[in-house]
């Protein structure tokens, strides 16, 4: 008899690999069904010191260069949790984003918006014992892309987490509330409603620092734990 999974499987809110409105998925998603396997030690273990591997915290994305970057300074805060709401402590979150004009510091980004010499747009945070994280950045701009006619990506921040195991890996994008581009975006819309709303941060006055920066809350929820034997 198979042992129960240590980590929950994907829930109904996870997007499919093939989402034809996001055109690059048509040649880059498998055509054959995934083969379901039990979770072995390989899937239920993970690196123990992500910060040692990927680098220490760099929680202020506005502080990498001599000058202050252009744009609206913001604070993003939240918790990393599992599906039962238990905090994921000492968890590394990698962060990257475009600048305030919607331009990435990347040799292949050809969008005709200015590079900001004072903004690279990458950082890392490590959650505390209650799973809390916080970083400072500027609100990224929207930018056009070639997916379809007049296509624009909504403002977003990329977030990457390993979590406790190979099975809990998560890379996602955080969007901003009331952005009219979200329902038009094939990448966000690969996630069906109501689950797409899990990708949208909340403006929060308590996180907002007076005369300094707007605050947003965004919780990250990793897979797990799995079903107990009673539930299996």
């Amino acid at each position: 008899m198979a042992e129960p999974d240590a980590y929950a499987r994907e829930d109904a809110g996870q997007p499919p690999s093939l989402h034809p409105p996001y055109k690059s998925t048509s040649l880059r998603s498998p055509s054959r069904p995934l083969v379901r396997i039990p979770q072995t030690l390989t899937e239920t273990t993970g690196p123990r010191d992500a910060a040692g591997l990927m680098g220490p915290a760099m929680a202020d994305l506005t502080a990498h260069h001599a000058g202050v970057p252009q744009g609206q300074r913001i604070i993003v805060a939240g918790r990393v949790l599992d599906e039962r709401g238990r905090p994921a402590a000492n968890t590394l979150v990698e962060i990257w984003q475009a600048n305030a004009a919607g331009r990435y510091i990347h040799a292949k980004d050809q969008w005709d918006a200015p590079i900001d010499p004072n903004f690279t747009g990458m950082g890392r945070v490590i959650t505390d014992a209650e799973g809390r994280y916080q970083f400072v950045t500027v609100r990224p701009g929207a930018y056009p892309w070639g997916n379809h006619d007049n296509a624009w990506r909504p403002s977003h921040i990329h977030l990457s987490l390993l979590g406790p195991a190979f099975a809990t890996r998560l890379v996602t994008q955080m969007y901003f509330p009331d952005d009219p581009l979200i329902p038009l975006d094939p990448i966000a819309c690969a996630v069906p409603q109501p689950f797409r709303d899990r990708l949208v941060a909340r403006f929060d006055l308590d996180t907002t620092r007076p005369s300094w920066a707007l605050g947003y809350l965004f919780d990250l929820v990793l897979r797990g734990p799995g079903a107990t034997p009673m539930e299996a």
Partner: protein
Amino acid sequence: MADNQSPERFGQTPWQTVGPFFHYALPWKGGADLVGTSDLGARPDLIPSGHDLLHVAGPRGPVAGDIIEITGRVTDGAGEAVPDALVEIWQADSAGRYPSEADPSLAPAFPGFGRAATDEDGTFRFRTIRPGRVPGPGNSLQASHIAVGVLGRGLIKRLVTRLYFEDGEGLEDDPILGLVPAARRATLVARRAGDALWRFDIRLRGEHETVFFDI
């Protein structure tokens, strides 16, 4: 309320693609070298001057086991290179132990985790050690293998596969390989391409499509 803090919205955060512009943030220098201190894994050629803030892997102690190199290409459904993919690996040490939280007594010199950005030809390369065999479901023993995750532009979520070795002990009885249709198992088996060099191509779609797992 359209946000992720409402109780009725609570649940797994959905995956989103890494997109094409992750190179200045994710693949650190040395991420693909699990046994040495080279810059393998990163793509500093894609980062404008003054903005290379990538972490550099620190020195490690000596690692027991046979050092191997794994190389392969990520290709799409048209057989074209995928130059903006990110390949991640997770593996046991040469004694078949995972360097995990669950067993903190294990030697930290070997991280077990690696990350490599593909180059313009879709090629990735790792330097690591050949892993030992680890337990499987029940009382089984798995054949030596490496867990592989593939991310990239056009991949909304990670694809998960495994690398086995063509001369590995226990391939015939491996409890995971046994779940894969026999005709497709070859896509999971790395071929010897030199003394310590292994070839493992990843075909995202189409002919000889790599087997991907639901874990």
